[in-house]
């Protein structure tokens, strides 16, 4: 504790604070711009940190990380383009809310959720990092598989009623993710002889294509889209006490889910948002308004993705195992300064370990102040004419994709998926379901096959290992809960399915 307080007092000096603020602002900016992201910025800044003091360098990089995950909600809410992959779920409800003229309120839910998620998870980072990290090691391949299986149930909930089409979209997403290296056997699949497909359809060009470029095509073609009159007065940006009273459990639950998923190596903040959103929706009293502007959806997504940032720092600091792509680059930053992350870090270089922990909280607070202070201006962004915004977004996407991989071919992939995404828009295939299939499938496949190898071709441990069995049961509960809850609330036997459909329509005007 004393060392943590020392770390805080050291961070409250000019240069550390300068780097925190600079990092958060840079992070928010790249997070908000579709095409640019924390992984790219941190990777590009890595050589510069060679010349910086090691503590300052880490404070700077952690601040960028915190800022970028929060910045993604801006473009997700205002333009229906997730600024970072972790904001995918935020587009589902943020944008519909903005379309209803409540852009300011949607933003403020996003900002408060980000702050709460960051703060709750920070407590775990500061107090429980070593034991949590050791517990996370208990997760073997089948535990991961069961966890992802739970998240896959979301496909049914994002396909907006058209279940069959949702499944088709998800299966196509699954198929797309199979192209390229098969990490479980070291072979390369489905390239049909095209060398350029050897690395597969990578996350950045694929996501930017289906989400951003397709939306740009829609925006280009649509000459009549009404400009949103976003009324975001500063005082409207604060949530009322009633909002907290109503949603406190969702804030807390989503933060906890985000923290935990962040701790698990290689899962990432997008999956954290997906899982938390599934759970929020299926336990909601009004699951039907999810995807149409539900406050609960924004809370679930944004609390969880910010919480996962601190969650991912837990194994990084405690064990030297990166929890996410950005953390892997942070380990590189530590290595540049010849620091070894891991249990020894607390003993040998406590100023680094506690410095990073303190920076995570300070950056979270700075992020909150900056976002809230500027949210009025941010909300006005959608008043800028399309002839300025859209070229800039396409430009940033092209630059971002090229700089990340160094290949022009990835730009073509992005364009291709933009076209595919547009066709999906028009044919009623859910892009959300496609992306879920694309993100979750490789983890599911990889972990299942790794599990088969580890447990001598037996599936049995999936049911005998307590944690994986727990996840399977939880998946079942989450899946069945909406039906069960309806039964409990509405004991009339048969016509319930039909009448609930009518309830939806009755609910809509009353929706806050």
């Amino acid at each position, binding site marked *: 504790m004393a060392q943590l307080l020392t770390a805080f007092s050291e961070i409250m000096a000019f240069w550390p604070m300068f780097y925190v603020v600079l990092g958060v602002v840079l992070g928010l900016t790249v997070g908000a711009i579709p095409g640019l992201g924390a992984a790219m910025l941190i990777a590009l800044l890595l050589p510069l940190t060679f010349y910086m003091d090691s503590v300052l360098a880490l404070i700077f990089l952690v601040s960028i990380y915190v800022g970028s995950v929060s910045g993604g909600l801006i473009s997700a809410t205002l333009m229906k383009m997730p600024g970072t992959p972790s904001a995918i779920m935020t587009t589902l409800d943020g944008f519909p809310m903005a379309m209803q003229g409540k852009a300011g309120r949607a933003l403020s839910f996003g900002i408060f959720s980000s702050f709460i998620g960051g703060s709750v998870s920070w407590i775990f980072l500061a107090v429980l990092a070593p034991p949590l990290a050791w517990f996370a090691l208990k997760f073997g391949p089948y535990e991961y598989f069961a966890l992802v299986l739970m998240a896959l149930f979301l496909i049914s909930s994002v396909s907006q009623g058209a279940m*069959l089409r949702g499944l*088709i979209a998800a*299966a196509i997403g699954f198929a797309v993710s199979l192209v390229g290296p098969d990490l479980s056997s070291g072979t390369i699949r489905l390239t049909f002889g095209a060398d350029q497909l050897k690395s597969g359809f990578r996350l950045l060009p694929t996501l930017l294509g289906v989400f951003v470029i397709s939306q740009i095509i829609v925006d280009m073609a649509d000459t009549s889209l009404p400009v949103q009159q976003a009324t975001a007065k500063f005082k409207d940006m604060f949530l009322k006490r009633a909002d907290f009273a109503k949603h406190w459990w969702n804030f807390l639950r989503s933060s906890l889910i985000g923290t935990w998923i962040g701790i698990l190596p290689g899962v990432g903040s997008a999956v954290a948002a997906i899982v938390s959103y599934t759970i929020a929706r299926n336990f909601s009293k009004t699951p039907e308004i999810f995807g149409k502007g539900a406050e609960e959806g924004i809370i679930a997504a944004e609390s969880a993705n910010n919480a996962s940032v601190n969650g991912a720092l837990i194994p990084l600091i405690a064990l030297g195992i990166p929890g996410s792509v950005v953390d892997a680059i942070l380990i590189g930053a530590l290595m540049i300064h010849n620091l070894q992350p891991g249990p020894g870090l607390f003993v040998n270089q406590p100023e680094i370990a506690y410095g990073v922990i303190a920076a995570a909280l300070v950056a979270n607070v700075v992020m909150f102040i900056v976002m809230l202070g500027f949210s009025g201006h941010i909300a006005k962004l959608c008043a800028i004419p399309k002839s300025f915004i859209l070229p800039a977004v396409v430009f940033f996407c092209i630059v971002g994709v*090229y700089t990340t991989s160094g290949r022009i071919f990835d730009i073509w992939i992005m364009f291709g998926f933009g076209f595919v995404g547009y066709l999906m828009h028009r044919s009623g295939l859910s892009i959300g379901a496609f992306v879920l299939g694309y993100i979750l499938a490789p983890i599911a496949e990889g972990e299942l096959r790794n599990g088969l190898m580890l447990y001598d071709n037996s599936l049995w441990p999936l049911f005998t290992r307590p944690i994986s069995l727990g996840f399977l049961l939880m998946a079942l509960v989450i899946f069945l809960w909406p039906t069960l809850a309806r039964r409990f609330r509405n004991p009339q036997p048969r016509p319930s399915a039909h009448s609930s459909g009518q309830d939806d329509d009755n609910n809509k005007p009353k929706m806050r």
Partner: protein
Amino acid sequence: MRNSSYQAATIGVPLAGLTFSVVLFLGAQQMPSARFEPMGPAGFPYIISALLFLLSMLDGAIGFFGKQSGVPAEALPHIGDVGLRRMVFGGACAFAYVIVLQLSLLPFIPASVLFLAGFGLILSNNIRREMLVIGFAALMLGVGVSLLLTRVLIVVLPGA
């Protein structure tokens, strides 16, 4: 238009699903057999191929018998002439930009400025009034980002 796009989807979606299913199946047949665990590299492709086949057939059958298999997730508005023109020219502009970079026909900065200005003008509702501002914005953004990347972050950008 809305109706015709809906009808196109009734045929298009199952067709796309079947195409993916066939491609996956053919691709899976070329894959090496399982050597480390029973599923092997081809296991999942076969499963997904079969799944897509079933789902697409089901979707197609529902569409064939005239039932609604799924309403378009979003009712997209009708594309007018202006909208179509913008799509075509905007797409061509972006396409030309990447081609120019790929073939190194122009250095990065002028190519980017031209692209930003051109794309902006295509989307502009009032070209005469916005021309100067768009041009200036394109210059600032194109030059600024390029210099930031090459000078501060030391990235090699494409182009001549």
